[in-house]
């Protein structure tokens, strides 16, 4: 089956993001397809490149990058949610006269249309957090 996932909570205030990660791993292991993960609301905090938790804690952003790269998952961060929370890609930062480049590997920035489209393309759509 084709799955699309939405994540609304940040890695630090909820466990939901990691639950989503584990579900995706399990789905892939069982032969399902996860074609898009959409990060919205506080979920955009999963995509910050420079998040540096202590070594003995879960490195979730790195895990997302590895998972997306290995399984070709389209990980989309909502642009309006991201900009509100200071997550800027270099193009956007330059346009605003800033010098950020915050987006971790494997993620891309796009709009809510990608979420609506994912709902239409998926056999199953699951929201976390």
């Amino acid at each position, binding site marked *: 089956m084709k799955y699309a996932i939405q994540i609304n909570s940040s890695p630090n205030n909820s466990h939901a993001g990691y639950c989503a990660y584990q579900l995706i791993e399990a789905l892939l292991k069982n032969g399902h397809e996860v074609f898009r993960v959409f990060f*919205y*609301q506080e979920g955009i905090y999963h995509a910050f490149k420079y998040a540096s938790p202590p070594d003995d804690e879960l490195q979730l952003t790195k895990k997302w990058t590895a998972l997306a790269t290995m399984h070709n998952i389209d990980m989309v961060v909502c642009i*309006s949610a991201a900009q509100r929370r200071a997550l800027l890609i270099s193009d956007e930062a330059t346009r605003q006269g800033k010098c950020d480049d915050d987006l971790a590997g494997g993620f891309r920035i796009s709009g*809510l249309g990608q979420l609506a489209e994912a*709902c*239409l393309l998926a056999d199953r*759509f699951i*929201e976390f957090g």
Partner: protein
Amino acid sequence: MIKKFLFIMRMAPHQGLILQEKLDVILTTAAFEQKLTLLFLDDGVFQLKKTQQPAKQGLKETLCIFNVLEMYDVKELFIEVESLQERGLKPEDLSLPVQPCYRKDIHALMKRFDIIVSG
């Protein structure tokens, strides 16, 4: 392709950006010409309450977005009767006409939809 979406509205209106961002999803989904229904549950019933004054607290108005939903062809709005009663509200306290749905019937209502968006 057209799918039937049920958006569950269950948070008080000015609790951070949650409602504002959810309304953005609702408007985007409506722009994709999907079939949308809203269900107001728990503290979500306050979202439709008349005489909100969010600007006084530096918050953006959300009630005005509900008032334009009809233009996007979102006409089916349900409210859980018990949620309304438990909060001392009456249908006339709300700024839009809504269809009552009793708690015992929520499950059957949900089964009518392809996608349920609850966050």
